[in-house]
């Protein structure tokens, strides 16, 4: 049975391992051939900005994996329009191709999926 899974992130980039755990969750569903979408909302949109170099803090750079998600068939990336405004970000400042969604469109996104997980 093919399922449509939506992962929603809202944590700041270095808030524990939360973005990392969202990434693992998205990748694992893709690996078992499910349709995965990932919505970045709140401070999690900051994880998509260019120029992040966690290695300078001695921390593993898992952010670079975000740029290669397409290879793993996680090609539905979405960002919350409101969150971009909150942090004054334009799509040019993001390191990935992601669709910008209003809350109204996020409602439709939720509607289309079988399971939604917030991490």
């Amino acid at each position, binding site marked *: 049975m*093919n*399922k449509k899974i939506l992962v929603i992130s809202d944590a700041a980039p270095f808030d524990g391992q939360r973005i990392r*755990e969202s990434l693992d*969750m998205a990748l694992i*569903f893709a690996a078992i051939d499910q349709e995965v979408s990932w919505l970045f909302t709140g401070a999690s949109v900051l994880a998509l900005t260019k120029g992040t170099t966690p290695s300078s803090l001695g921390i593993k750079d898992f952010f670079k994996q975000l740029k290669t998600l397409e290879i793993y068939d996680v090609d539905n990336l979405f960002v919350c329009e409101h969150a971009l405004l909150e942090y004054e970000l334009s799509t040019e400042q993001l390191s990935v191709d992601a669709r910008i969604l209003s809350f109204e469109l996020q409602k439709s996104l939720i509607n289309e999926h079988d*399971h939604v*997980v917030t*991490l």
Partner: protein
Amino acid sequence: MSQLIISLHCGPDAHDSLQCMNRFVQAALKQNHTIKCIFLYQDAVLHANQHIQLSSDELQVSSIWEQLSSQGIALKLCVTAAEKRGINTQDTGVFTVAGLAEFAMEVCKVDKWVQFR
């Protein structure tokens, strides 16, 4: 009757969340639904720490898990989340060490996935 899967995301200090999850599970069993498994992810893997010591007037966290296990519910924990947090994956008591892939495959087979954070 529905097939349900539960994921728990909070550590053993969150007594209220644990009790809330437990009440949901007990009510679901009473309604003859099936609980495919309870999966511990993020800080919830810390429930597998085997030395929880609480005074007798506190919620006895480990006996809740023992009861759930004795009711035949599969209790699984995410190995990666556990290793990152220093859990001894050789000594996890009633919990079975599992990969995220195993959990994800079970999610695909159930009707509802309910998260407790």
